[in-house]
């Protein structure tokens, strides 16, 4: 039996003794975890969708989300604040890409700078979310209570606030844990852990998680603010 076939032959990737996707196990696990987590969010959003579809009416997001900190009385700015939040989160994904890229080039200083920027972005997003939740809470919205009327002026059930706080809260928890992970990555970078290892693979995995959380927000944002 010939065993001298070149390693690059595509069939050989699966013949054992190496990773078929050319990744180490940690990254493989991260991908599968993200698939799993996608099912968690998928279940939430489908539950939200079916409930909303089965409801007689739903509040108009342009009326609910029309405020921002320090807004003059009587004016309204529909979806402006959440757009800023979304922009911040997407920018933090860009800085994360830069951190990962710097890691691949073994440029420690650039990794540190971009990680710090990503952490700031994440914290800024969480801060915005905290403000928005507080604001809604002051208006009387919370789990189990919904002060907003349906778009057609009829009385609304609590489904809107129930799903809004649960799903954005669950996403916010993901952002929070992403920030914690990034802070750990930052500390490890500063302590030269990755320099000693000779690679920044862990930052790539943290990056995958961070991009995933970003991507989920795009769906959450679409479902709650745009539709």
């Amino acid at each position: 039996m010939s065993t001298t076939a070149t390693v690059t032959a595509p069939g050989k990737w699966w013949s054992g003794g190496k990773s078929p996707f050319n990744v180490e196990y940690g990254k493989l696990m991260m991908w599968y975890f993200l698939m799993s987590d996608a099912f968690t969010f998928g279940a939430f959003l489908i539950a939200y969708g079916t409930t909303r579809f089965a409801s007689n009416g739903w509040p108009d997001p342009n009326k609910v989300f029309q405020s921002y900190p320090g807004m003059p009385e009587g004016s309204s700015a529909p979806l402006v604040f959440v757009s800023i939040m979304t922009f911040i989160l997407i920018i933090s994904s860009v800085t994360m890409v830069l951190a990962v890229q710097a890691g691949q080039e073994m440029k420690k200083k650039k990794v540190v700078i971009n990680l710090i920027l990503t952490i700031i972005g994440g914290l800024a997003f969480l801060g915005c979310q905290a403000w928005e939740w507080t604001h809604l809470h002051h208006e009387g919205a919370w789990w189990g209570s919904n002060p907003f009327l349906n778009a057609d002026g009829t009385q609304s059930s609590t489904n809107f606030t129930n799903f809004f706080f649960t799903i954005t809260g669950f996403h916010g928890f993901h952002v929070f844990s992403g920030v914690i992970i990034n802070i750990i990555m930052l500390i490890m970078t500063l302590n030269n852990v990755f320099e000693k290892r000779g690679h920044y693979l862990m930052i790539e995995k943290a990056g995958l998680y961070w991009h995933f959380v970003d991507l989920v927000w795009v769906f959450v944002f679409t479902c709650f603010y745009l539709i």
Partner: protein
Amino acid sequence: MSTEAVLQAPSATHHEAHGDHHHEHHHHETFITKYVFSQDHKMIAKQFLITGMVWAVLGGLMSVLFRLQLGYPDAHFSWLQDILGKFWVEDGRITPQAYYALVTTHGTVLVFFVLTAGLSGTFANFLIPLQVGARDMASPFMNMLSYWFFFIASLVMLSSMFVETGPFSGGWTAYPPLSALGTASPGSKTGMDLWLVAMALFVVSSLLGGLNYIATVLNMRTKGMSMTRMPLTIWALFFTAVLGVLSFPVLFSGFILLIFDRNFGTSFYLSDIYINGVGALPNEGGSAILYQHLFWFLGHPEVYIILLPAMGMVSEILSTNARKPIFGYIAMIGSMFAIAILAFLVWAHHMFVTGLNPFLGSIFVLLTLLIAVPSAIKVFNWLTTLWRGNIRFTPAMLFAIGFVSLFISGGLTGIWLGNSALDIHLHDTYFVIAHFHIVMGVASMFGMFAGIYHWYPKMYGRYLNNTLGYIHFWITMIGAYLIFWPMHYEGLAGMPRRYYDYSIWESFKQFAELNRFISTVAMIVFMTQLLFLFNFFYSIFKGRKVTTLNPWNSNTLEWTTPIRPGHGNWVGEIPEVHRWAYDYGKDGREFIPQTEAVGADESHH
């Protein structure tokens, strides 16, 4: 023990078993790192197994208790009250509340703690690294965490037995509103909170384990172990892990919404409810059906999470002990793949009569009946593997054959239940109980027993006692049919499940004798499992020692490790694989291990 005398073929590699110990890479191991917080996949497997066995005994005992009520609804067992206390037994009878708590906990524990954690937790951990040729799991640390999350989940679930209002008692599926409203029943209070916490921890455990199994199978195969050379056990455990990783998160989402409904005034699952003594509840706008969708999106794949590992081990054990290659290896993989896909597309057949749109139901009927195709392929492949085989009737082989028998008997009734029109009559009757206990419960239990008997020599370096094994098999096999076969008739007569006392129903009085018979057999079968437990624990210390590397003359890699492999499994290099795992009876040779290079003039299989 006659079979084993036949099996003790002189082994050329015998001396290697002892010679190489001092080369072994020795970590300094304390009792804690070796037996408690071990990161060795073999020890973690044993931890899963023994914890699962503890749960199997508790869960089995629960079924004995509620069978006592069903078989002897008028009897008074005052001695039971002395043992169990007033919550469980009053005036010598199991209380209705306790009865529901028992059936609920029996279901939860057997489905999740025994047949998920105890089955795939044990054998995925034990067999994946050994059979793909890896020193350990991809992440031994996460693997250890997986067990300890399961352990904590077990403690929490166990503690729910001892709270004042009793454990959760609304059925293992935990449908709202019983699960969502603390005022609905005593068991819906603290018991349900503990149930939810335990199950959430269990999901974490299952996720950590599953990610590890997937990564190990994909990334850690030894040189030459291509995917299509893997034993079917590994394929089955791989599909099981993928199913778990993709379905448990949906259950988790469902639980989070349930937690909010219970504690934070939401009404995801609640609408227009009136409770006696409480009045109309403010909850409106939600739907209990939503929970059922989320639950069964896990719940149905869960059935295959339970069944697939058993199928994989049975394939391996049948082929090894029939001394024949498995029939239709690729078809076996293909049918497992088909089952894994279909598992996600049939969940609503559990909901035919809960308000599902009948037109939607017809699609789920079609998809459900499609599962019969891969299932039948597997059954025929097993039968053709046995056909004209040189069968060695070891206890493991008997249990594997028993699995096939049960899978056929229980699978055929699945075709009845999969029809939404028939389901109107059969839904929530004893017919359903009979169906899923035979096809999923007892069958997977048989797969688990087959696995334990077969791999016990690798686990402990000793044999289980064969005579006890044969007694265990025959009583369990006959008993399983005697318990569950009559339930089909009860179900066809319309006898609903989960009732506390059938003797007060004119239509079901006729089954009093039959129920007593079923209960008696159930108790005998339970006692027989204690015999197995004795065999298991006695043999760890006193069983006959394994003296040859490959006691079953098997092809797979785990039998190339030392008799008692250390952490790291192989002394020296991990062997390279040159062929698939099923070269039995080829070119006049009884078996050719996977490690043997393909000869120049060897025939193709």
